């Protein structure tokens, strides 16, 4: 992929507006330099580069985030089973160790590349960029990045995705959006997974989880589903299809992460999509 754009070579030094120290500062022996730059500016540049590759290949990319064990891989297996005949799906798996999840995805019938981060608690744009080299983007319609299971760190790193889907499984408790506001504020879609356990767990109320999400001033859809009940997955598939259509129709950047740097919390990509397909607050 990068043979044609030259990005296999190290990124050029960041251009800055900083000038050499002024003679006055030199005389004083000290200088205070205003910078006002995002701390993750380098990652953001790499993410924009990744997104440009995805856009050029016409691939829509979703970053899947949750705590460990919320059912990301199981949801993907069910998604591949349901959509695999009509969608060409690729998955980048992020885990600290093992190739297990990539093997599960391949067994389900999709292309997968495993990133093992060692001790790193999140994926960053450079890791995803290296992974993109292992995939033939031109042969994909949908790329899902299954982030490292963690409700904290992954929310901070733009990977180049078009949208963020955040999973919250029923056994975790319906108060998680209040406890992890940064993660749930980054979501374009919230999926309440393992709904088949609602009766067993007993004290998880989907409407309470949705209310905690709403308190974060985000209008994104909140969908309740279970990978064990294929009919419950329809709103998720619908959201993916709408995201894909929106991407193809407009070619605009979507997704919270794509808008990093903007302070706007007003309508974002997930909101209008969710509103259109009517899955909000289920």
């Amino acid at each position, binding site marked *: 992929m990068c043979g044609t754009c030259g990005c296999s070579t190290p990124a050029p030094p960041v251009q800055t507006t900083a000038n050499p120290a002024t003679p006055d500062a030199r005389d004083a022996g000290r200088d205070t330099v205003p910078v006002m*730059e995002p701390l993750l500016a380098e990652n953001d540049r790499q993410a924009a580069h990744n997104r440009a590759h995805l856009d050029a290949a016409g691939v829509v990319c979703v970053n899947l985030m949750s705590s460990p064990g919320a059912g990301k891989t199981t949801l993907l297996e069910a998604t591949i089973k349901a959509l695999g005949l009509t969608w060409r799906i690729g998955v980048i798996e992020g885990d600290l160790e093992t190739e297990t999840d990539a093997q599960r995805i391949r067994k389900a019938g999709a292309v997968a590349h495993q990133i093992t981060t060692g001790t790193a608690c999140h994926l960053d744009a450079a890791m995803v960029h290296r992974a993109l080299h292992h995939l033939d983007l031109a042969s994909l319609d949908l790329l899902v990045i299954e982030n490292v299971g963690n409700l904290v760190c992954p929310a901070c790193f733009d990977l180049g995705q078009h949208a963020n889907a955040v999973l919250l499984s029923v056994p975790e408790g319906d108060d998680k959006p209040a406890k992890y506001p940064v993660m749930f504020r980054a979501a374009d879609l919230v999926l309440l997974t393992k709904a088949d356990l609602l009766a067993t767990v007993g004290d998880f109320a989907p409407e309470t989880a949705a209310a905690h999400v709403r308190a974060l001033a985000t209008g994104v859809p909140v969908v309740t589903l279970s990978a064990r009940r294929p009919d419950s997955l329809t709103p998720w598939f619908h959201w993916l299809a709408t995201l894909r259509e929106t991407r193809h129709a407009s070619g605009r950047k979507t997704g919270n992460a794509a808008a990093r740097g903007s302070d706007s919390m007003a309508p974002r990509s997930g909101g209008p999509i969710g509103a259109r397909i009517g899955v909000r607050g289920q």
Partner: protein
Amino acid sequence: MHELTLCRHLLARVTRLAREREARAVTHVTVEVGPLSGVVPELLAQAFHVAKRGGAADTATLAIETPPPTVRCPQCGAENVVSPTRLTCPACGACRVDLLRGDGLILKSVDLSLDARPPS
């Protein structure tokens, strides 16, 4: 957990700035870490203390500004400081608001120590 990663980004940036300005050392760094940035200021400070050693910022101090989340409501126009877990408009209850401050993760300024040069 990712504060050390952030520190490496931060130190690479300030080191480059020091080099561009032909500074002798970085003496002070000011960053803004909003409560909605996903970064814990205390952990960032600890990571900075460890990661700076042996580099251009070896003796540098770090100031972390943590402005509370502030929202402006496009419906009623109210501007309020709010809790990170309740960002809706406290005045009218609207759930679509503009976040003015609180999610920033910004390198604001860098203080450098320079070698004095004789006037040419």
